[in-house]
């Protein structure tokens, strides 16, 4: 398998995960909201391509794509989404949160924008250690309007932190179109004012994302400081599943679905002869089966014993 096939596989995995979770939701099998990552698969996968387990990511409320792209095991991740005790965090973190320190996944966040300062902290930590490890902070275009964004841009640039700031501009923050909330529609333009490199990237083209990621990660590793990447993409679903999406047209949605990152990549791979249709079909089938199994397992698993709610409020141990 070439690395491009791996990219395809990862994207297909995310796609299947999101599709099948939505189905579970539609069947009333899911406890709570689903913030679907459908349509944005190329962003997570392209960005995580150049990262190792030493590198960190910080995610959002819409984090499954990031988790899977960074290598989180499918089954415990899915179980976490269902709040089951087999979940990667014992089922207590839930749909907006999951973490895996060993893989450098520092968690999602229920607070929009709150991951940015934390990512800067992780990057500062790596800078102290001089390991060359890089931190990638994922956030939405909506988050770019929160105070934490400006503070993080500035500190990252001033300290030349090994940080890549990745704005997935999917055009909507909940029900509000981005264009209604800004005077400048390219988030990437904010970079220059903070003394940082900024770049707009086609977020539905996984190879373009990977290339930009490689440049930015390389810069960060070498001490060249942070980069702001704006990945233009689209949130296929509502803010959460069930959102009637009155704030946009079905036409607009169709247009963006025609720019499907998975299909585009599939076509490219076949056209260039790097993969055969059947091979990719098989991958998709496999991913479909893997996800189906993960969901089945999650559904069959127990919810955590309620008394576990008392665990981990504090790290135990007396110091003095």
């Amino acid at each position, binding site marked *: 398998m070439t690395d491009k096939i791996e990219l395809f596989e990862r994207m297909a995995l995310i796609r299947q995960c999101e599709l099948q979770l939505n189905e579970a939701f539609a069947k009333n099998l899911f406890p709570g909201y689903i913030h679907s990552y459908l349509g944005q698969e190329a962003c997570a996968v392209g960005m995580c391509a150049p990262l190792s387990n030493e590198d960190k990511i910080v995610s959002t409320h819409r984090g499954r794509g990031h988790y899977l792209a960074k290598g989180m095991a499918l089954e415990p991740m899915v179980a976490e989404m269902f709040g089951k005790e087999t979940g990667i965090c014992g089922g207590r973190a839930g749909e907006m949160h999951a973490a895996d320190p060993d893989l450098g996944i520092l968690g999602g966040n229920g607070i929009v*924008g709150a991951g940015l300062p934390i990512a800067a902290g992780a990057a500062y930590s790596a800078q102290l250690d001089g390991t060359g490890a890089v931190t990638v902070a994922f956030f939405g275009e909506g988050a770019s*309007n929160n105070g934490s964004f400006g503070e993080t841009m500035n500190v990252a640039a001033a300290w030349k932190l090994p940080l890549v700031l990745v704005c997935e501009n999917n055009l909507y923050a909940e029900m509000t179109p981005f264009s209604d909330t800004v005077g400048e529609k390219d988030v990437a333009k904010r970079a220059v004012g903070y003394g940082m490199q900024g770049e707009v990237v086609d977020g539905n083209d996984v190879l373009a994302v990977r290339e930009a990621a490689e440049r930015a990660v390389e810069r960060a590793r070498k001490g060249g400081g942070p980069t702001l990447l704006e990945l233009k993409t689209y949130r296929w679903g509502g803010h959460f599943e069930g959102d009637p999406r009155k704030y946009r047209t079905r036409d607009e949605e169709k247009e963006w679905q025609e720019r499907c990152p998975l299909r585009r990549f599939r076509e490219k791979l076949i056209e260039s002869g790097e993969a055969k249709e059947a091979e990719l079909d098989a991958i998709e089938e496999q991913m479909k089966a893997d996800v189906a199994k993960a969901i089945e397992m999650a559904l069959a698993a127990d919810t955590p014993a309620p008394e576990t709610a*008392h665990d981990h409020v504090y790290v135990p141990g007396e110091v003095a």
Partner: protein
Amino acid sequence: MAPKNYCWALIDAIREEMERDDDVVLIGEDVGAAGGAFGASRGLLDAFGPMRVRDTPISEEIIVGLGVGAAMTGKRPIVEIMFMDFFGLCLDQICNQAAKMHYMYNGAFKMPLVIRTSTAVEMGIGPHHSQLLESWVGHVPGLKVVMPSTPRDAKGLMKAAIRDDNPVVFIEHLALHRNKEDIDEGELLVPLGKADVKRKGRDVTVVATGLMVARALDAAETLAKDGIETEVIDPRTISPLDIDTIVASVEKTNRALVVTSSMKQFGFGSEVSAEIMERAFFHLDAPVQRLTPPFTPAPFGKHFDEYLNPNAGSIADAVRAMLK
């Protein structure tokens, strides 16, 4: 009289006040075109247009700051912070700016500002969407803090909050949004700072807020079958607290239990208990008790919520234990 749910009662309140006074404006995330993240401002954009019903970016600090600046210059803004869990992002504007402006400048500015917010305690959404932090704002002089438990109170308190010249933090329990009640069509104002005795009783006083009021009433029903007469008081306003009504009740019942959805430690129950201590100590036959979720964040999932939060059963148990 018409049956209204808590959510529509609030929309009615805001609509009526916006009709009555052009200076009333509504500012927040998704309040306009989307009709509110929880549908709690439906119809207002169409009625009043995008200047008076303003969608904002995800910028909590400036959402409140816009309200502060507008209030200082003649408006009566309602600003919305979607969840109270996000207060950590805008508490400076609430507590240092809105709360202190009238005071610092020796009365030169009024601050007719409503900070509308909600809590989703017990709705399973996890640690960043399940907090009730009324005591953060209750601790700050200059602020009023309101927390209605019924559609009628929601409407009347919202209208009063909008007309008040002080900054009012208005906390809605999302789990109450669909509760219905008959509400008079006419003008309805519920005064800030006045508790409501939701049920009369002589054996024990239960002070309950928000979601807990209905449960306390349920518990009272059960207890009544055993001959225990419970007085249920809903303070409705957290600050300034109508402690007189509570003390008068305790002087009669000689026992009090405080039930909240917020943390016990440094919480509402502690305040009520300490006030009863100071004012009605010699009337007490038993120590005032606080019944609250334990001192932990809220994990994801309703199974945890059910386990962690007080309910009619645990309220009744707590009352019985006090009467032993």
